């Protein structure tokens, strides 16, 4: 009983990491119809920032906002050039551009931060465990669950329930019309990209406590995030949440029951899902242009 309770918490904490990473990617894909494969680089950048910040002795909780700002700044600069020039291009061109950039960033970060594995010092306050029916569960992971849920909720609220969110969504549907209302859509897109990059950075800083930071993490994370976004269904927030949960639970419980085949089983579940529901878990009802 305690065993399954803790395994469910394990699944939940991993799902939260997937969700945070996936959200950053899906925000840009859904709202701007832009495929951004440099998202893994933002994650890794955030992870490095987190590692260095937590080791520096400065207040630990600032590590996450700082990672958000660092990655957001990178996103801001990239949006100016060259992302902006590619919004109107086909997805294939966007993939080529952003994949190429991600390779460059991987090399730059290897050069700047070194090739060795850096692991984050988890702050003293979050280092303990709680015992759930005699089974240990780390407090840091509880923190990730809480933080992730709060962040995801805030994002959903802003996009779905506020006027700013409505403006962004309107931009996607008909950019020209929003312009006629006197709104600068370029600035809106910049803001969305910065938020997306920042989300990547903050999830990197959070994830560094579990995953460490090292060259190659960017790719590993990007692939998981892509699975989450695609299986969740393009253009839906709820879908991304559901598919992050599904992938997290599938990967966790396949490790519990059939550790040898955990990747195969987890990915087979996601593949089966896509075959059954090609539009994703939650399909968008609007017409895709």
């Amino acid at each position, binding site marked *: 009983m305690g*065993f399954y309770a*803790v*395994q469910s918490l*394990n*699944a939940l*904490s*991993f799902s939260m990491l997937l969700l945070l990473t996936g959200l950053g990617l899906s925000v840009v894909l859904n709202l701007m119809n832009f495929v951004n494969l440099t998202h893994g680089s933002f994650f890794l950048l955030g992870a490095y920032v987190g590692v260095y910040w937590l080791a520096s002795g400065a207040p630990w909780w600032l590590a996450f906002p700082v990672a958000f700002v660092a990655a957001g700044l990178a996103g801001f600069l990239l949006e100016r050039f060259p992302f902006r020039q590619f919004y109107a291009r086909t997805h294939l061109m966007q993939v080529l551009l952003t994949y190429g950039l991600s390779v460059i960033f991987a090399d730059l970060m*290897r050069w700047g931060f*070194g*090739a*060795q*594995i*850096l*692991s984050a010092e*988890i702050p003293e306050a979050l280092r303990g*465990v709680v015992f759930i029916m005699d*089974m*240990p*569960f*780390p407090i*840091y*992971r509880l923190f990730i669950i809480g933080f992730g849920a709060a962040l995801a909720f805030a994002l959903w609220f802003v996009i779905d329930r506020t006027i700013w969110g409505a403006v962004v969504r309107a931009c996607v549907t008909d950019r020209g019309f929003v312009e006629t209302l006197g709104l600068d859509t370029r600035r809106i897109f910049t803001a969305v990209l910065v938020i997306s990059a920042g989300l990547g950075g903050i999830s990197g800083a959070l994830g560094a406590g*579990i*995953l*460490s930071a*090292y*060259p*190659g*993490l960017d790719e*590993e994370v990007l692939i*998981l995030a892509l699975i989450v976004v695609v299986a969740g269904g393009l253009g839906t927030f709820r879908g991304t949440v559901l598919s992050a949960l599904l992938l997290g639970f599938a*990967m*966790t*419980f396949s*490790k*519990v029951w059939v*550790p*040898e085949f*955990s*990747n195969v089983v987890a990915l087979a579940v996601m593949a089966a899902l896509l075959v059954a529901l090609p539009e994703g878990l939650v399909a968008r009802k609007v017409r895709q242009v």
Partner: protein
Amino acid sequence: MTERFPLSRRSFLATAGATAVTGAIGAPALAQTANKPLKIGMVTSLSGPFTALGESMRAGMQMFLAENGGKLAGRAVELIVEDDQAKPDEGVRKFRKLLGQDNVDIVSGVISSAVALAVRDVVTEAKALTFISAGSANDLARKAASPFVFRPTKTNWMLGHTAGQWAFEKLGKSGCLTIAADYAAGRESVSDFVASYQQQGGKVGKQLWAPLGTTDFGPLLTTIAAERPEFIFSFFAGSDAVRFLRQMREYRLHGKVKLIGSGALFDQEDVVSAVKEAALGGLNTCNQSPTAPSSAAFTKAYQAARNAMPGEMGTAGYVTGQVIKAAVERVQGDLSNKEKVKEALLAKEVETVFGPMPFDPRNNQAILDIYVNEIKEGAGGPVNQVIHTYKAVRDPGPVA
């Protein structure tokens, strides 16, 4: 990515100049070939999953050559380093390039066993003098052994076998759980450990496998917490090892359950320096230890140069240099007769940083001292401390 040893170009010019002068005044032709620069090719992983290991290996070799003034047996050395990205096909391409295009006298390096197995036919066909610095699949010393391929490194068996002996004697006769990365090296290490442990009468409990590149060990660690084993044998390397050890501590298993593994799990430079206290108390069997008596001078020099204690790969690069030096010096720099080089190298053991290193004449595999290391608090943080040495461990070789 081609890199040349910085000292060598200068000394190459010097030697070339000297050769021209002696040639002009009519020195014998033989002296001229002996004075030609010695070209050493090294293939290692400078991108891909083993990047950090590859950079350490290159640094070890460069350190060795620098200490020798860029010269071996009087011949200036030109080192050409190539990147195999830890991919077999890329490794084959780079070996072909070094042998066919650069005309190197010696090829060396390699981290991935898959690359070592893939290039085996290339170097065998070319009858190239080859020194494999680190590929450790057992088959490399068995079915895939080759007359001119020397292996100044361990096999998985040498580590798994000794870990099994140590575990049975010191850790417990039962209550063993194994958890390892699910790929060739992990499978091989665990099966060698289990065979050795069971042979003595030990009982192995649950065996867990985690895919290569597992990000979250949480579910597996919860399973371990529920199993309550006496001790764990484990094989992980690189980022997997770091995450495994950190998460062991996160789940409060560190310190509660004894952990023993193959050297890579607690590699000094790659893993221990990253996980720090989470490594304390861990045991491993390895052909390398920064605290082995044979490594004392090297450990100090490496720390000065790289600001880190040496792990297996940095040491392997250096040791490869030492073995090449022994081979070249024993034939006075004349590598034209490869049979003679081989005979000279097999005739007597080489004193290396790993320890004394005789070669097995059946397969050119090094016979090595295997250290049992325990991670203890040292002056500069946790360090691999030798607590026992298994002398002259020899792979069963081609008969196994």
